[in-house]
Each structure stands twice: as C-alpha cells, then as structure tokens.
C-alpha cells in the first residue's frame, strides 16, 4: 500500500510563493492499491490534480471517502475531471447525518447559486453511501471509520493492508476531551490510530495559536505529538497546515514537533503535496 498526498492545507487553499514547498491545496489523499480502483480520501482542492492524473491513467472505478463535509474537504469535487466522463463509476462515502442524506448535503454546494451546473448534469455514474459501522473491505484492504472530535459529523479513517496500517485524521481536536492520562479507548480516535505505522494528523496550530482557538476542531503540534504517543503509533505526519503558515513557519513547527518527540521514536514529518508514504 502507498499513500500519496495531493493536498494537505487546512481550511482554505493557499497558493502563492510562500507555500510552494509544502503546497496550498486542501485535503486530498490517494491510497494506491494493486488493483485498478482508485481509493481517495477527501475532496479538497488537491483532488483536481488527482482527477487529471486518474484520467491519464484511464481509471474508471473510483471510491471517494469523505471525513466530513466542511468545504475544504469537498470544494474540489466540482472540479474533479472524472465526474465529466460517462464511463466513470464514482462511489462517494461519508458520515451519516441524523437529518439530511449524504447526497442532499453534497448537492447543496453542487447546484445554483453556489455552482453554475446542476448535479443532474454530471455524466459519471455516482452513488452515495453512508459509512458503515463495520470495516469496509476492498481488494486486500480494510478501511475502518469512526466518529472523531471535530464540529459536525466527522470521521477519521484507518487503512490496513498486508500487515501495515495508516490512520488519517486531518481534522481532529482530541485534546478537547483529553489525551493526557487517558486510556486509549477514552481518547477520540484512539482505536483508529492505535499502533498505526503512520498517523496523518491535524497539526494546524502552534501551541500559542491553539490557546486562542480551543474548540475550533483542530490540534496544536504539541497535541498531535501527544496523541501519537498516547495511542502508540509509530510515526506522525503533520497535516492540515494553517493557511497563514508559510513553508518557513511549517518547518519551525516540524522542529518543535521533533523536540517534543522522544529520541527513541521516529521524528515527525511535514505532509507535503506529492509525498508518497510507502507501507510494507
């Protein structure tokens, strides 16, 4: 299994000279499998470039798993090139809501006046699915999902294949309910990330910034490190970068994350567009 990052910026896309190294596109991650089906996590603006790549690869079967429907995880969908190919079959999976179906929630941003075209005009064959309580099983892969601490119905994912595992928690504020001195089963997303080889985790803020944004649904770098340690995951990948943070600031935060990580653990990494994480 390989995991490729197409977008790792939080909140809003931030193109410009200060973000060229780590990228300005919002959340989108591709899980590369051996079969011909594409598995995509989130539809931030990073999915636009992925879509072009999938067209080039002639991929016609696509499964998109959404952690939640905040715009920075959905805004790229309208510009996802495979949507406009009638030969493409796209499954969209997302957290269920007690009130409105996944389809209706997505269509709110996919119709006038927010978008010039109507969803009914999309030629690809699209189906909508509520994420199941039990693991989703694909070809050689298991995808677990569970509700995590972030405003609104939001899930995190854990992918397992061939004895390897990666947790994807792009928007997550576990510190709000406690990390320190908690058993992992009492930590939000504790089971999803437990003993994972890699954890792609929200690390939007510095410790000082977090103090002014408690309850916004995101983590400080220090909390991301603390969470990784508490659940026994092997390596942290700092994800969902704050739009105000330049490449230089991100590297300072990476240094801080390394300072907070014990010497006998693998040092945290900054997620960047184009990064490929190899799992055995």
């Amino acid at each position, binding site marked *: 299994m390989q995991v490729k990052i197409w977008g790792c910026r939080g909140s809003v896309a931030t193109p410009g000279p200060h973000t060229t190294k780590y990228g300005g596109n919002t959340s989108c991650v591709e899980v590369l499998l051996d079969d011909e089906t594409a598995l995509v996590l989130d539809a931030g603006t990073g999915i636009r470039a992925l879509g072009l790549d999938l067209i080039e690869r002639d991929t016609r079967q696509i499964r998109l798993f959404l952690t939640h429907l905040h715009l920075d995880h959905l805004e790229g969908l309208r510009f996802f090139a495979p949507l406009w190919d009638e030969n493409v079959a796209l499954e969209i999976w997302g957290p269920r809501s007690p009130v409105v179906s996944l389809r209706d929630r997505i269509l709110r941003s996919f119709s006038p006046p927010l978008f010039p075209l109507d969803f009914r005009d999309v030629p690809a064959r699209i189906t909508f699915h509520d994420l199941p309580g039990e693991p989703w099983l694909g070809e050689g892969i298991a995808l677990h999902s569970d509700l995590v601490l972030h405003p609104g119905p939001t899930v995190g994912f854990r992918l397992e294949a061939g004895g390897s595992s990666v947790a994807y928690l792009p928007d997550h504020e576990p510190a709000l*309910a406690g990390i320190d001195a908690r058993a992992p089963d*009492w930590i*939000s997303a*504790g089971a999803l990330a437990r003993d994972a080889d890699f954890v792609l985790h929200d690390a939007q803020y510095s410790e000082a910034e977090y103090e002014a944004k408690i309850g916004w649904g995101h983590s400080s770098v220090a909390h991301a490190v603390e969470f990784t340690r508490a659940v026994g995951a092997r390596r942290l990948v700092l994800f969902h970068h704050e739009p105000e943070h330049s490449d230089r600031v991100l590297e300072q935060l990476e240094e801080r994350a390394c300072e907070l990580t014990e010497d006998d653990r693998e040092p945290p990494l900054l997620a960047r567009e184009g990064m490929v994480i190899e799992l055995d």
Partner: protein
Amino acid sequence: METQQQKQLVLILARAFASSLSTPTLLADARGYLVFYNEAAEAVVGRRFSETGEMPFDEWVAAFEPRTSDAVPIPPEQRPPRIAFDERRPSHAQYVVTSADGLEREIEVSAFPLFAHTDEFVGIIVIFWRS
C-alpha cells in the same frame, strides 16, 4: 483493530463534560456498565472511580441501598437509570441512599439516554442532586 475497546465519541464527550461539572454525574454505556463518574460524584459515594472500575450499573447502585424516605427499597426497574436504560426516556426521582462513608443522604436523581444517531443508543447520563 480492537474496535470493541473504543468508547463511542458521545461517551468521550460526555465524560469531558461531566469532568467539568461540580454536580455529581455518572455515565453508563450501552451495555449498562458504569464507565465513569466525576469528582463531585466521588464525594457523594465516598470512593474514587479508579478504585471502582467499570461494573454493571445496577450492581453498583445496589450497594447504596436506594429507598424511599419511608425506608421502602426501590427496585431497579423503578430507578431513573434503569428507566432511562430500558425505556430510552428521561426519568427523575427522589430517594435516600447510604453512601460509602455510612452516611444516609437524600438525593434526587435525573437520568436520560444518549443517542449518537436516532437509532444508536450509546448509554445514559445520571445526575445526582443533593437535597
């Protein structure tokens, strides 16, 4: 992945909420097990949660011999926690208990069910009000 071990997010949030309250508050999960009570509740029951650990809620409550002010024992099915658990509805009652320190206390008990989704019952919250 050991999904059975993970506490449901609503319970995690309820625990964080209860931890911040000065009102004695208890949580039971969908199995009917007491999974947490806060410091204020520790003061009422005279025992820390870490000493008690998870256990069936009815079993835990029975130790306090809940009864009416006329000393008539209250059966489990008439106690608010059991009503909230079995009937999935809120309930409130007043009764007398003997706490772990041997003191007799008059308390009021409110219990209500927690649903993560309309069809997903995840446990109950129980609040003690000292009369």
